[in-house]
């Protein structure tokens, strides 16, 4: 699926894309600019939801659902819990002298990210299928992946890369135990 082909169908998608993209970026800026910690957390939620919308546009339904489940449902709620425990909610960030170096770093990172995304030869579905380099069987397989990502993701996640998946869970478990050990009395 490519954006902006000029047909009526993609006009609709284009409108949705721009609404999502702008709201995502605006709320992301609001997160760092907001003085009120609670407001910042709320804008972070909006940004997460907008990213889930981008995943839907890319036909990655599974990622979108997981994005809402983990980032909106779990991580944001944890941040809200942290807000509850914070005394000075409306104080804003403490000032520091690192604005200039951080700004330069951010500009550099942005430039690299834009360069990479423009320069990379992306494997788009249409170009791959029409190039004639793949057999019809493989082409069917690729189309199947695009129409139904869940089994493919499942197979990769809990068969091919199961070790990495489990190591990540063990890491999380270790951090939970570490946190408990830190707050334990006596």
């Amino acid at each position, binding site marked *: 699926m490519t954006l902006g082909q000029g047909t009526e169908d993609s006009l609709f998608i284009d409108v949705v894309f721009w609404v999502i993209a702008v709201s995502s970026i605006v709320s992301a800026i609001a997160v760092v600019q907001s003085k009120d910690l609670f407001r910042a957390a*709320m804008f972070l939620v909006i940004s997460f939801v907008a990213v889930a919308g981008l995943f839907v546009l890319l036909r990655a339904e599974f990622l979108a659902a997981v994005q809402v489940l983990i980032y909106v449902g779990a991580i944001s709620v944890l941040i809200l819990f942290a807000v509850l425990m914070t005394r000075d909610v409306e104080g804003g960030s403490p000032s520091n002298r690192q604005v200039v170096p951080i700004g330069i770093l951010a500009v550099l990172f942005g430039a690299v990210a834009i360069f990479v995304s423009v320069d990379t030869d992306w494997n788009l579905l249409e170009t791959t299928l029409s190039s004639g380099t793949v057999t019809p069987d493989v082409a069917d397989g690729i189309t*199947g992946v695009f129409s*139904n990502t*869940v089994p493919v993701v499942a197979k990769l996640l809990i068969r091919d890369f199961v070790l990495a998946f489990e190591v990540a869970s063990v890491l999380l478990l270790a951090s939970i135990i570490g946190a408990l050990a830190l707050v334990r009395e006596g």
Partner: protein
Amino acid sequence: MDLPEWLAFGMAGFTLAFIVINAMIMSTALYTWFERRALGRFQVRLGPNRWGPFGLLQPLADIIKLITKEDTIPDEADRPAFTVAPVVLLLPMLLVVAVVPFGEDSFLGRLNVGILFIVGVTSISTIAIFVGGWASGNKYAMLGAMRGVAMLISYEVPMALAIAGVLLLVGPALPADAEGFAGISSLALSKIVESQVLPFLLVSPLAFLVFVAAASAEMSRTPFDQIEAESELGSGYHTEYSGIKFAVFQLAEFMAPIVTSIIIVTLFLGGTRGFSPVPEQIWFILKVFVVIFLLLWVRATWPRLRIDQIMAFAWKGLFGLAILNLFVVATEIEFLRTSDGTLSTGSLWLMAAINWPVTLVSVVVLARLLGHGRMDRPEPSPSPLANMYAEAE
């Protein structure tokens, strides 16, 4: 008239969404009447019975009253967040209905990740409750919201584990084929319904019990209504709300049992399945109604739990039961599944025969471990009011 494709698509979508949203809101209005009448019956009183036959027009009177009331916003409140919170609480309820199949071919969206979507979207209501309580700038609302967030994220864990136990029973995903069939994953609700040759209530009763308990905590009704414990917190996170905003909060709260029943029916009672002279949609509504009544029965029977009891029940009780269920079901499937990963009806019956005793034993053992024995219940201490009456006489 020749409409452009996107406009036709948009209009059709809008019309269907309009019908479904209005059906949900109307049935919620009717449900408030039913709940109050039934609660009256449970508590040996009448319930609303003045306006219309059997008091049926009571919801209309309530709506008019709530809309015409003054809509106050406290000075301390965070105004935009205060206004948005009720809408955010209502949103997940309506979104869930969008992916549920009401019949084999009647649904709004055939989402391939249906059940994951439901779990993700319902977790938004936690945020809504927190925002409502925080933005009110009121200590009681804040306390209600804190309790609410702690309780809701705790009960999401056993609920998700119970759902995982159900998903194991659903057959493997079907890949897309050349005839235009887009493929369907085992997370899709229509696939879950389709694979319930035997309702999953029979096959894995433990998952059903855990899910029902966790879900009734998620919709925060008695016995789990610590979020708005009237005797301690005013009325919890919506203490400061009035008028139309309060009405939207109440709408979301009364819609929750309906939505929960819809999910329970889809996951455990075979959803739209039924036998043939009666259409599937009617079967679905009948089952939903039965589950709604059972949930109401639970609500009318139990008193409110303390907050520490609620948290202990989630982490020490339901969490263990859900993991046990997942383990037992996974082991059974490992031995019983056929070479292509499906389960025959015979093996489903066999699993039911194993799972029912496991459920009974584990629930009894858990009750022994967590609850007070019949003999060593603490003596109830007489209320201070009892002395007042004695002195007055």
